[in-house]
């Protein structure tokens, strides 16, 4: 009979190796680094807009309208003589803020409802998931446009409209993950340990199910920025004269044959932002999946 001490094992060495490997994984995770750089630069531009922008984004100079790019106006001016570059920089502030906030609200609502539905099951689950089905039956843009019409254009109604429509995705994702996690033995063990349902859901299941929702949120920000741009293009978005990429594309498209940069450059910025967020989401999904944490 061997005593338990015969199996004593030291972890110090392995532990240190794991620590440095985690840091290396960050560097080696190309898409995560590219995403962080792109999104980080965009956030920096948005934050530093008052310093970076050469002109007031809403000051009109009708005498200088529709100028071609020059040393004074690198991207030219729009039909009201406003500097396109300055509007682009200030627009980053509006679009990124609305994009992130419009994701945060449904992320919280959807995750909480999905987790409760998945964990407790029963009639609560049935009712919640049928409501989710109803929301899913309507196309995203149709619902958003209708809701913005009802509440009137402006930032607040965009938040309400997007939150009302997109919480269902988070509810579905988190519910599915909770259904898997709650059957794991560690959840049974926590119950045997005398822990309450609230504690198990927040401390034991939560951290294991949220990574999928966080990854989805990254691509959802892209969706929401597209939605804001689309609403801006349709004249339902942020109220003019606030600088915003969607309304810039809308304004610029009239002059696409003579002043192509007015619509094209904001369009390219939207594409780059989406690319950055997608890369970030991709990289995060690699980093957050526990299978990779060896």
């Amino acid at each position, binding site marked *: 009979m061997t005593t338990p001490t015969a199996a004593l094992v030291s972890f110090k060495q392995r532990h240190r190796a794991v620590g440095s490997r985690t840091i290396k994984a960050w560097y080696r995770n190309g898409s995560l680094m590219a995403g962080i750089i792109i999104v980080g630069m965009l956030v920096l531009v948005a934050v530093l807009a008052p310093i970076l922008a050469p002109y007031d984004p809403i000051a009109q100079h009708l005498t200088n309208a529709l100028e071609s790019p020059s040393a004074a106006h690198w991207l030219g001016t729009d039909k009201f003589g406003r500097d396109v570059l300055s509007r682009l920089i200030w627009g980053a502030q509006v679009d990124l803020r609305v994009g992130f906030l419009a994701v945060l609200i449904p992320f919280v609502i959807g995750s909480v409802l999905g987790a409760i539905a998945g964990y407790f099951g029963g009639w609560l689950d049935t009712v919640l998931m049928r409501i989710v089905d109803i929301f899913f039956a309507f196309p995203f843009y149709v619902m958003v446009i209708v809701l913005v019409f009802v509440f009137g254009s402006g930032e607040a109604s965009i938040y309400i409209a997007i939150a009302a429509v997109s919480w269902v995705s988070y509810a579905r994702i988190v519910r599915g993950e909770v259904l898997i996690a709650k059957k794991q033995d560690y959840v049974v063990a926590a119950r*045997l*340990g*005398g822990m309450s349902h609230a504690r198990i859901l927040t401390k034991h299941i939560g951290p294991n199910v949220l990574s999928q929702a966080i990854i989805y949120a990254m691509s959802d920000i892209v969706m929401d920025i597209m939605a804001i741009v689309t609403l801006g293009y349709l004249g339902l978005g942020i109220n003019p004269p606030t600088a915003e990429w969607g309304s810039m594309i809308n304004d610029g498209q009239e002059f696409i044959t003579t002043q192509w940069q007015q619509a094209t450059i904001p369009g390219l910025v939207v594409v780059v932002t989406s690319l950055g967020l997608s890369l970030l989401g991709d990289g995060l999904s690699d980093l957050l999946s526990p299978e990779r944490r060896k």
Partner: protein
Amino acid sequence: MMDAPVLRVAAITKSYHLQTSLASRLSRNENGHTSLRALDGVDLQLNKGEILALVGESGSGKSTLAKILVGGTTPTSGELEYHGEPMPAHRDKDASRRIQMVFQDPYSSLNPRISVGAMLKELLLLHKIVPRGEVRAESVRLLNLVGLEEDALQAYPSQFSGGQRQRIAIARALAVRPDILIADEPVSALDVSVQATILDLFASLQRELGLSILFVAHNLAVVQHLSQRVAVMYLGRIVEVAETSELFSNPRHPYTRALIDSIPRMTAESVNEEFVLEGEPPSPFNVPAGCRFNPRCPYAKDVCRATDPGLEPVAAGHQSACIRAAELPDHSIALSISATRKATA
């Protein structure tokens, strides 16, 4: 001399109902089976300070019984007594603390995102086992008890091997100071080389802490040197209970004999292949009439197909659910006969 039972179940049954669509229920004919009896009247008692092995094939209901004992599932009917008092269906924090479980799969039984130290700390504080200042010392004591060092505290489960994970799972079960441990096939997911060390750990826990342990296994060989008593389960029933040495030397149920004979041996007698079970265990949706073992039993007679035997005493502390228990040929003689037959052939 019988020790006082710490845990006793009587006439426990557990049925599961198969969910069927309305259409299939309407078209179903008379002999359709939609209800499954995982446990069909189980009587068992766990004595203080003993290791009782519960052995049976997959699907015999041993895991279901383990789940009922720890309160993970409620039985369809039957009684569950803890120290002679009926256990409530919904256990409070303190009641669930007293009976802890070690799971089969050490990979899904530890939360991948909680470090070993945080896991133990949460339990110790929740049940106020020790004051906050002594949590670390107590955690280290628990780790040492299961053969791990202090530096495992800040590590995550993914940094450990299967055997080490099982040690952590045992430390977690012990953290809340239970007096009963239910181990659901705790070594069957481990490498053979590691199995022995974990079995030793269970033996030392029983010796040093006086724990009462129900050790579920699908293999008699695993528990031969560990348990004091063995209960054999077949298709939702206990078919034989005896002290380990008695069970191995004098099995009084044909199924137990089959289990014993299925243990690989490294001796000349291991060429004995006389008693090999044929066929799969019957579907629990469609339990055979009479003795539930009769379709696979070489000793089955007409009476076995007609009467469903209960668990009856055959010797002191030895019960068997076989009508022909007394008539069964002596096992060791059966062994030697087959050996001589092989030798003369």
